Structures are given as C-alpha cells and as structure tokens.
C-alpha cells in the first residue's frame, strides 16, 4: 500500500501533478458550462445567436407543456432503467465476486469488451435482432409459437429503447457493485453464520448493507447517464417517443435554436442534479441508520 502524504498548497510536486488535468477540466468542462448558462439568456435571429440579454427563452421553456411532458417520459425511462439495471446486475456482480474464481477474469474481459466496443454498431445489432424479419421472429416462427405473419412490434418501441439503454449502461452498475462486494470482509459473513443466521438472513442483514456504497454509486451513474440517452432512442425506439436527448439534439441541429437548446439542457441538468441531491440525502440517512 502506498502512503498518503500531506502537502501544502505551495508544494511544487503537488502543483505539477494536480494542475494539468484540473486546468483542462476548467477550460473545457466548466467554462463551456458557464457559456451554456449565458447563452440561455440570449435570443436567436436568422439561425445566429444574438447577444441581447433577456428572458424570452426561459418564458418559452416554462410555458410549453410539450417540453415538460418529454422530460417526464425521460425521468420515467431513467428511473425504470436504474431499477432494472439494479435488479439484473446484483446477482451477477455478487456471483462474479464470490463464485467464478477460475473464470472471473475471462468473464471480466468479455464484459469489458462488450461495454467498450463501438456503441453504434452494438445498438444496430439489436435492431437486426428485434426487427420483424429479424432473429427473434425467426426463432418464434420456426418453433411454431406464432403464425408466419405475426409481427412482434418489438423494434421502434419504448421497450426496445429500454433494452438498448440497459445494454449500454448496465456495465457501470455491475462493476461498481462488484467492487463493493469484493471489499466485504468475509469474517463478518462467517460471524453472522456462527450466530445462527441462515443464508437469506445473512444476505439481508449483513451482505446487502455492506454493498450499499457500490449500489448507490451504480444507481447514481446509471441514472445520470440514462438521462442523456439519444442513440438508443433514435435507432431502436425509432424516435417515436422522444426523450430529452432527442429534443435537445433536434433543437440544436434541426431548429438551430441555440438559446432554447441550451435552456433545455440546463433544465435536464438541474432535474438530474435535484434527483442526485435527493439520492445523496437518502444515502446519508441510510448510512446513519446503518451505523446506528
């Protein structure tokens, strides 16, 4: 293990190591964020942003119900995505950490590859699978479960979008939970067995509470990232039920209305932030009750 050293802010080594990427993030992350906020108070004329400070864009945002209904759809999809990702990935992460000693690393390689490879090609792969003349329908028709003219209606639906979102985001949940399961002290579980608790009770009262940091981190990551989904919804959902990502993309790309697009982005970020703060609030409370 490496020692952690206290450094004063005047230390040169600290500056050399800590400042380059901090400067990078200030210049290309926080500065654009400020610009985004400023642009929401401008107007657009002839597809150009004109620097006149006013609140027109914000009145538009708050009076158009359509934007808020899309936001609601996005929130619902993101919430469902978090829930499903958690339910699916918990047994996987737990099993990966406790059961697959011989194959653990092979499985990790397979998962990392599936997570890292080209997102457009993977998503398109799902379209081919779900399509009416695709793989699923071929299997269903071939086994005689459905008639030859049956149309599954899977592709270009919200269901397809959800599958795409889970597919592209679940790795974040699996790996955060996996790390927290790895960190559990086996002795605590043994102690619980020695005290006469069964497998289920030990899981519920010892293992699960000890995994909480990983679960919260995973939920948080998946939630925030699923708020900004566009590709899955466009390719697999067919753009029939637009989400915020689609709306924002359209406002910037097709309508070339930068102030409105920026304002919608800000709305999305603020909503995500509020949910995040609630998350953190519950987490604190949760930690308090857990350590009581």
């Amino acid at each position: 293990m490496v020692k952690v050293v206290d450094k004063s802010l005047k230390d040169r080594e600290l500056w050399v190591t800590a400042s380059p990427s901090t400067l990078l993030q200030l210049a290309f992350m926080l500065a654009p964020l400020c610009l985004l906020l400023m642009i929401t108070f401008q107007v657009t004329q002839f597809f150009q942003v004109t620097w006149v400070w006013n609140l027109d864009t914000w009145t538009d945002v708050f009076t158009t119900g359509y934007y808020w209904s899309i936001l609601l759809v996005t929130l619902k999809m993101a919430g469902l995505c978090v829930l499903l990702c958690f339910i699916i990935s918990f047994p996987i992460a737990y099993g990966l950490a406790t059961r697959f000693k011989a194959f653990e690393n092979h499985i990790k390689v397979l998962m990392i590859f599936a997570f890292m490879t080209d997102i457009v090609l993977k998503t398109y792969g799902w379209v081919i699978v779900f399509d009416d003349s695709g793989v699923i329908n071929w299997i269903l028709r071939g086994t005689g479960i459905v008639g030859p003219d049956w149309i599954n209606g899977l592709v270009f639906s919200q269901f397809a979008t959800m599958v795409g979102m889970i597919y592209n985001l679940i790795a974040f949940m699996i790996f955060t939970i996996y790390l927290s399961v790895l960190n559990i002290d086996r002795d605590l579980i043994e102690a619980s067995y020695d005290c006469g608790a069964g497998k289920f009770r030990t899981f519920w009262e010892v293992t699960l509470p000890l995994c909480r940091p990983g679960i919260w981190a995973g939920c948080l990551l998946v939630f925030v990232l699923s708020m900004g989904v566009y590709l899955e919804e466009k390719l697999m959902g067919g753009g029939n039920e637009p989400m915020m990502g689609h709306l924002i993309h359209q406002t910037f790309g097709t309508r070339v209305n930068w102030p409105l697009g920026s304002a919608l982005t800000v709305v999305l970020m603020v909503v995500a932030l509020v949910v995040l703060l609630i998350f953190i609030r519950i987490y604190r409370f949760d930690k308090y009750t857990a350590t009581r």
Partner: protein
Amino acid sequence: MSWHQIEKWLVNILLYGSMAAILTFFYIPIFTMIAFSFKETNYMIFPFGGFSLQWYVKLFEHVDFYNAISNSFLIAFFTMIIATTLGTITALAWVRYRFKLRSVFQSINLLPIIFPQLILGIMLLLWFSVLGNVFEFNTGIVTVIIGHVVYLTPFAMVVVSVQIHAFDDTLEDAARDAGATIWQVYRDVTLPLIWPGVFSAGIFVFLLSWGNFYITFYLNGGARTIPTFVFAGLTQGSIPIYPALATLVFIPGIILVAVAEHYRRRALARL
C-alpha cells in the same frame, strides 16, 4: 435433502444462471452482426440465403471507409497518448497527496464521467464555436481529440489509481536515499512500477475513443470516424456493409481488451 441444501442449490442456480443470461445478452447483438456480415442477400432479413464475402469486398471498395478508419485511428491514437499521460499524472496526486481543496480537485476531475456525453458534446460544440469565432478555426479532428481527452482523462486516472494504490513506495524511498533526484525517482522507479496500469489505461482509452459516438458526432465538423460514418449511413437507410465493418472492428477490440486485462492482472498479482 434438508432445507439448507435446497437454499444453497437455489442460490447457485440464480447466480450461475444470471451470469449465463447476461453474457448471452451482451453477445446477442455482437454475434448477430458477425453472422450478418457473411450473408448473401441485400436485405437485413434472417435467415439469409447463402454464405458470401461480397460485403467485405464492397466495404473495401467504399472510399469513405478508408477515410473513416484513418480518422478514427488518428483520433484514438492522440487521445490515448494525451489522456493517458494526463490521467497518470493526475492519479499520482489523487492517490498520494492530501491537501486543502482536495475534494474540489477530486470532483472537478471526476465530473466528466458522471456527465451524459451528449450534453458534454453540445457544451463543447458551443464553446468551440465561440472560440472559433475569436481565434478563427473550425471544428475538426483537433477539436474531437480535445473532447475525447476531456472525457477520457478521468477514466485513465481511475485505472492508473488502482495500480498506484497497490505499489510499494519504500522502493522510492530507497532510490531517494541512494541520491536520486525527484525526476530520476519518477522515471526509473515509479513509472516502471505503475507501467502495467498505465499500459492498460492506454488500451482502454484507445478503445473508448475509437468507439465514441456522441462527442465525435458534435465536434467532428466534416471529419467522419467509424461510429459517425455508420450512424450517418443508418439514418439515411440501412446499407448492408455495416455488419462486415462491425466484424472487422470487433476482432481487434476483444484481442486488445484481453491483452490489457492480462497484463494488468499479472502486474497486480506480482506486487
């Protein structure tokens, strides 16, 4: 059979079964794409008639394909060099130093990971168009590289941090006692010891940059990479060369991941 045994049995079924299910789930679209690359027909219909390699031939005849490959490679290569270097340097401060404002430093340097890439891409597009008006440049390969570096430096930092956590810094003390300067210690002791982490971080950054869609999509100007090339084709109507392209992208990808993981694991086991 006692209740205890049944319980154990059920838990094992759940754990092994869910693992098998998720791996199948992960590889359904990937294998479907690979299978479709050998089809004979023009359409994306399953089952496809016979076996043929005509789509590979068509792909290699496609002019934009070479352009996209070389752009993707250039971007991924430079992103890998810059983001891995920055990530390694940052990881040193992240793991080893405790200082005032450390939490500010940490949140600034982790922010891009918890940011939807779509929003990051749009923000940078706005920023570059304002900067471009002042300094007179257009978005292109360079802006894509900057965007990827912003997004991927935190990833590199996280991967390298794991390696730094595990390494034995008494070796550094020994080098210092033997009279090495700060720079010599970093070059001859620290860097070789954390190198496996740096190396696998580099591979991961390369792959994530290669497969990145959102940031490239907004910042590329006219320069197309593989993901944006495919996306443009798909929105105009499905063209049957993409499965062949996918197969060519997947195979080196999985080899790189396997190499990176193998290297990293062996190094961690040795420490």
